[in-house]
């Protein structure tokens, strides 16, 4: 007898296992430090985009401002652990909690807005944060950037080693994915989707819609904050342009290219976009001798093409590998009786 959870949401064990296997096996193939950097960045960005897919794909709320929360996390870590010599882990935690609270407070008014108005408000948040990062240069280092962010250590191990950092990032990402799929595979996930479809009907059913929207907004902001902290410790130098709207737009592209309707889409999209860039550059340089401007033209074109021909993102292409269509599974043994009763209903209609 199939578990109720799997009846409702399909099986998630397979994709989780596949991801775990990929994470574990990749280092045996990959030697280049450059590929590791990309893999690490994918992990970092995936933490943001997974949260964002909860917000965009499930709750249907646009954000073009998550780079701000990414930045707040990064700067919180940088300032607390760099300037104030606090433990990076504590700094990360403080950054995350602070971001959550901040996003919650901001979220209460702005999530009353819908669609494009919300997009605008989040752009505004992003710009305000960006300007503050530049302007508060006594604390943030302003446009010159923040130098001197310590390297992470864990149980006395320096995570400076690529491999350690790689595993560290992906363990965090993996946990975030599990938390997120837990949310999605529960009443809350259903509720978020129902908000997407009809906010009015959802409210009528007794749901304090704004409360959930704000909670998910703040949660995804907290995810972004963690990712920002990790980013800061990885690059060890940050400056405001990294946290501008262009980055928020990049996150959005990642979510949409992968497929917004699933947490897995976000992970996939992040990986694809990161590799796409490098692939275009590699292919372009090696075989066509093209230069930077041609690369971005090709990059723009590929995004357009993916969205044109795969409006649900790339995930559906991949998910066929993981999951058979749920319809093909026999309706699992929930209750024998109703199956028969429903067939009798069909025949009664046929009796015309």
């Amino acid at each position, binding site marked *: 007898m199939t578990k109720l959870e799997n009846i409702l949401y399909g099986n998630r064990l397979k994709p989780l296992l596949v991801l775990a296997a990929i994470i574990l096996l990749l280092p045996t193939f990959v030697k280049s430090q450059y590929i590791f950097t990309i893999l690490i960045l994918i992990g970092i960005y995936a933490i943001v985009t997974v949260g964002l897919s909860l917000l965009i794909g499930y709750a249907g709320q646009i954000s073009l401002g998550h780079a701000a929360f990414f930045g707040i996390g990064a700067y919180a870590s940088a300032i607390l652990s760099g300037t104030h010599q606090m433990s990076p882990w504590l700094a990360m935690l403080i950054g995350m909690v602070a971001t959550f609270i901040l996003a919650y407070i901001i979220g209460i008014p702005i999530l009353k807005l819908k669609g494009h108005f919300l997009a605008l408000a989040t752009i505004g948040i992003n710009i305000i944060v960006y300007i503050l990062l530049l302007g508060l240069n006594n604390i943030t280092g302003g446009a010159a950037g923040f130098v001197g962010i310590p390297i992470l250590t864990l149980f006395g191990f320096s995570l400076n080693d690529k491999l350690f950092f790689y595993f560290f990032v992906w363990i965090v990402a993996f946990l975030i994915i599990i938390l997120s799929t837990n949310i999605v595979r529960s009443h809350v996930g259903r509720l978020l989707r129902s908000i997407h479809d009809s906010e009015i009907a959802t409210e009528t059913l007794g749901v304090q819609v704004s409360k959930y929207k704000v909670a998910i907004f703040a949660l995804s902001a907290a995810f972004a904050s963690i990712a920002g902290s990790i980013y800061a410790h990885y690059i060890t130098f940050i400056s405001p342009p990294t946290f501008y709207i262009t980055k928020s737009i990049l996150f959005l592209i990642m979510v949409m290219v992968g497929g917004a309707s699933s947490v897995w889409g976000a992970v996939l999209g992040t990986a694809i976009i990161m590799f796409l860039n490098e692939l275009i550059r590699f292919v372009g340089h090696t075989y066509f001798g093209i230069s930077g401007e041609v690369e971005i033209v090709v990059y723009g074109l590929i995004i357009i093409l993916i969205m044109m021909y795969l409006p649900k993102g790339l995930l559906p292409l991949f998910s066929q590998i993981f999951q058979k269509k749920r319809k093909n599974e026999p309706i699992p043994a929930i209750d024998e009786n109703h199956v028969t009763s429903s067939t009798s209903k069909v025949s009664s*209609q*046929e009796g*015309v």
Partner: protein
Amino acid sequence: MLNVQGLSTHIGKIQILHDIDFHVNKGEIVAIIGANGAGKSTLLNTLAGLIQPSAGTVTLEDEVISGFPANKVVGKGLSLVPEGRQVFSNLTVKENLLLGMFSKYYKNKNLAYENLNKMIEMFPNLNKHLHNLGGNLSGGEQQMLAVARGLMSNPKIILLDEPSMGLAPLVVKEILDALVVIKEQLGTMVILVEQNVKAALKVADRAYVIDQGRILLNGTREEISSNPQVMSAYLGVKMA
């Protein structure tokens, strides 16, 4: 006359309509009845070109009208009043009505205003709201607007998908009576899809019963009304 032959429609991979044959003669009101999900709306949408059929042809007065997009089909004289009203909520009632003439507006503006006046006469409720936004109307008012808008283009044949839905009994009667008038005065053909089978059969000349995408029965109004299967399944007559 309208002639439908071997019409099949798929939505995605699922076949909704199976090999449908039927016709409507000039000056005839034909009712189509069937349970929820039988495929009535799909049939009308296919005729109107909103969905392209996977097989079959539709001819209207010797002209093939299948295989054209919806916006071309109207120009050929077939007008659909869709399920769920679909008024333009951001336009006024008057603008909504005038758009009903889109296919002919630039050829004959006077006719557009003439028809507008006719519709207002037929549905006085609309006159009251002429400059209100379509979306602010009550459900029933929107339904009247949708029907009136469908008639604006002087179609050769008009398809109505559950026009009585949400209308007060008096208005249902008015609309159905109006159909009879249109049919008699202008020779307009009418296909009437109705859940209110009783009311539909009062005005229809003939009726088709459709079930699971197939035509199950057809006959004159009298034949269909007295068919025991129809009586039990659609007319709510409880039979032993």
